[in-house]
């Protein structure tokens, strides 16, 4: 039995058998298979060799005319190695004799060959080590790709164990069978965390080396409440966790009762609880969880899911699907917020050295107007059919906001000319997610209809912490006085200008912060869907006057540890369950 501590990013407890996803870009852990499975493992290897050979042959044929002889040589090298019986025999031997997984056996043998090459005194040979690594990655991609494919058609419930999960991987999940997630890397706001919360399954991230400690088929406990993972638990531990899981489920039933009730404080102040969604189908869950609309529609999925750039119709269809579900409730659509990912990086002439400070989000859109206008047209067209608001992300200056609004005005004009219907008074808002925007919130407030504070990025940029880097993730704290001061300033600026302000970062779905946020003056929160009932329950148990008092006290403290412990104490008074 092994207990590993990480960060719990989605609540709940599950005891289940594990599926391990290796990543071809990371070191493949030493993994063995049970004796009875070596034959199947050899078969997987055979198939990977065949598929990889086929793939290279196809590339060679399809692109024969495009490339010079050097590149053709590379294909030839790959094919020669992939067809090398002696190579395959060595790998097969490791599987049958040492019981290595196919992935690990491939990695061991090819790394040996590459190492041998790279130590050669002759550069013509030492440089070929990179070819060998290429071949290794190609084989691993086939082996791992097939494992990923398996996650689409699961027969039993599993917990997915991986280094980190990408949107492409999670998009293919067979949701009905995936009961939990445990990853080496990631943080509270990483993609894995967001997906887990939207599926409502427990997840623990930043576990360091969970992929090395877990073998496929191991029993694993994922405790998303306490941020722990137990590998191969003993009987006592299993019983203990079964009890805990039952208590959580019971608490869940209690929460079911608040779903249909309004989010109103004990002293009668109405709070709007909206949902953050990424896919149109999630809109249904907004309603079933008792949400009042969509406060943040993330549209990046449209760009990442398909190979081609989404068309205006792709956008329009997704927005209309959402509108049909939420009817006349508000939907805030955020324009494309990509950067530091495949979509923009593949198009970049050279990879950006620091993509988080690079050409991302609104900056990317303002430099790629046709992509931007396509999306805006679709949002405007959808606005004729529902209560749609448009929101620009990552604004850092007035000029940027004005530019974005000019583009919006431009597209409106086009639609008018073409006599296509849209809401002329569509509310325009911005995300406040940079310290710059927070500090000029008063000026910005004069030119927009609403603010939505994106705390994930605001914290990252204020504290200079990469939120997905597990080595500094502990420095990432919403309770840092610098962050709370910025948030407070933004609320004040919005109130002064009499525009709406909401908070849509992960902070909104963390129970510790609810009373504080109400005390700071938020009347609207937009959050991860599964957390809506929980947060609603807290809202229904507090009075605004108590919240004001709490906020004043929190803002007077000097360190995030003091603030966090104050908030936790308060939460314990409000509710009596462990977080």
């Amino acid at each position, binding site marked *: 039995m092994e207990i590993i501590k990480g960060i719990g990013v989605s609540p709940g407890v599950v005891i289940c058998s594990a599926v391990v996803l290796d990543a071809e870009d990371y070191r493949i852990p030493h993994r063995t298979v049970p004796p009875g499975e070596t034959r199947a493992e050899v078969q997987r290897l055979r198939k990977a060799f065949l598929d990889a050979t086929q793939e290279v042959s196809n590339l060679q044929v399809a692109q024969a005319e495009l490339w010079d002889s050097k590149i053709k040589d590379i294909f030839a090298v790959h094919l020669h190695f992939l067809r090398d019986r002696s190579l395959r025999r060595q790998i097969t031997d490791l599987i049958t004799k040492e019981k290595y997984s196919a992935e690990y056996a491939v990695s061991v043998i090819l790394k040996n060959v590459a190492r041998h*090459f790279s130590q*050669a005194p002759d550069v013509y040979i030492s440089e070929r080590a990179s070819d060998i690594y290429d071949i290794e990655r190609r084989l691993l991609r086939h082996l791992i790709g097939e494992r990923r494919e398996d996650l689409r058609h699961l027969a039993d419930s599993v917990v997915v164990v991986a280094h980190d999960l990408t949107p492409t991987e999670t998009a293919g999940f067979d949701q009905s069978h995936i009961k939990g997630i445990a990853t080496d890397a990631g943080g509270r706001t990483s993609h894995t965390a967001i997906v887990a919360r939207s599926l409502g399954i427990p997840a623990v991230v930043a576990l360091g080396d969970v992929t090395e400690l877990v073998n496929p088929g191991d029993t694993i406990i994922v405790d998303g409440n306490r941020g722990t993972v137990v590998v191969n638990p003993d009987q006592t531990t299993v019983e203990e966790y079964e009890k805990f899981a039952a208590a959580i489920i019971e608490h869940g039933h209690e929460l079911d009762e608040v779903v249909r009730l309004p989010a109103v404080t004990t002293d009668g102040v109405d709070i709007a609880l909206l949902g953050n969604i990424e896919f149109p189908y999630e809109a249904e869950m907004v309603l079933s969880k008792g949400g009042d609309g969509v406060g943040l529609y993330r549209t990046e999925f449209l760009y990442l899911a398909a190979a081609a750039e989404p068309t205006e119709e792709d956008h329009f269809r997704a927005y209309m699907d959402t509108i049909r579900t939420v009817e006349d409730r508000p939907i805030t659509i955020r324009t494309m917020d990509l950067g530091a990912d495949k979509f923009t990086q593949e198009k970049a002439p050279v990879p950006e050295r620091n993509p988080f400070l690079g050409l991302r989000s609104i900056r990317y859109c303002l430099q790629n107007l046709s992509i931007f206008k396509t999306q805006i047209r679709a949002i405007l067209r959808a606005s004729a059919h529902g209560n749609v608001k448009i929101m620009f992300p990552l604004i850092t200056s007035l000029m940027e906001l004005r530019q974005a609004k000019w583009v919006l005005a431009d597209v409106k004009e086009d639609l008018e000319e073409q006599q296509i219907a849209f809401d002329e008074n569509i509310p325009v808002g911005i995300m406040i997610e940079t310290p710059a925007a927070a500090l000029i919130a008063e000026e910005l407030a004069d030119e927009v209809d609403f603010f939505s504070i994106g705390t994930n990025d605001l914290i990252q940029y204020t504290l200079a912490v990469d939120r997905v880097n597990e080595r500094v993730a502990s420095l990432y704290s919403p309770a840092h006085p610098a962050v709370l001061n910025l948030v407070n300033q933004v609320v004040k600026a919005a109130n002064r200008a009499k525009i709406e302000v909401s908070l849509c970062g992960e902070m909104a779905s963390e129970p510790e912060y609810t009373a504080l946020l109400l005390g700071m003056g938020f009347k609207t929160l937009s959050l991860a869907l599964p957390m809506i009932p929980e947060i609603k329950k807290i809202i229904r148990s507090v009075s605004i006057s108590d919240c004001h008092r709490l906020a004043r006290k929190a803002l007077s403290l000097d360190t995030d540890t003091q603030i966090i412990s104050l908030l936790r104490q308060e939460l314990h008074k409000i509710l009596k369950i462990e977080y």
Partner: protein
Amino acid sequence: MQPSPTQDCNTAERTVEIRNPEGLHMRPAMQFVDCANLYRSKVTVWKDSQSVDGKSIMQVTTLIAIQGTQLTIRASGPDAEAAVAALAEVIESVNNETSD
């Protein structure tokens, strides 16, 4: 019936020197292996006391035959003579290759 040794189990052997400044690098190694695979005989390549399977690209390249290396090509099987002759010719043509 066992094949008679005189017919089917000839052995042949020849020692060649790599004179190409780039050594037996990837492209000629592929030519060598391709050639070896055309024959039924078992082909081994010796460098000092190290021997490898002449039909495996992985093994031939791991010999790291740089300029000045002496390689002994040994074949055993029905077409051993022809195999060794052809393989020696591959090395010869590599040696004469003008570096591009």
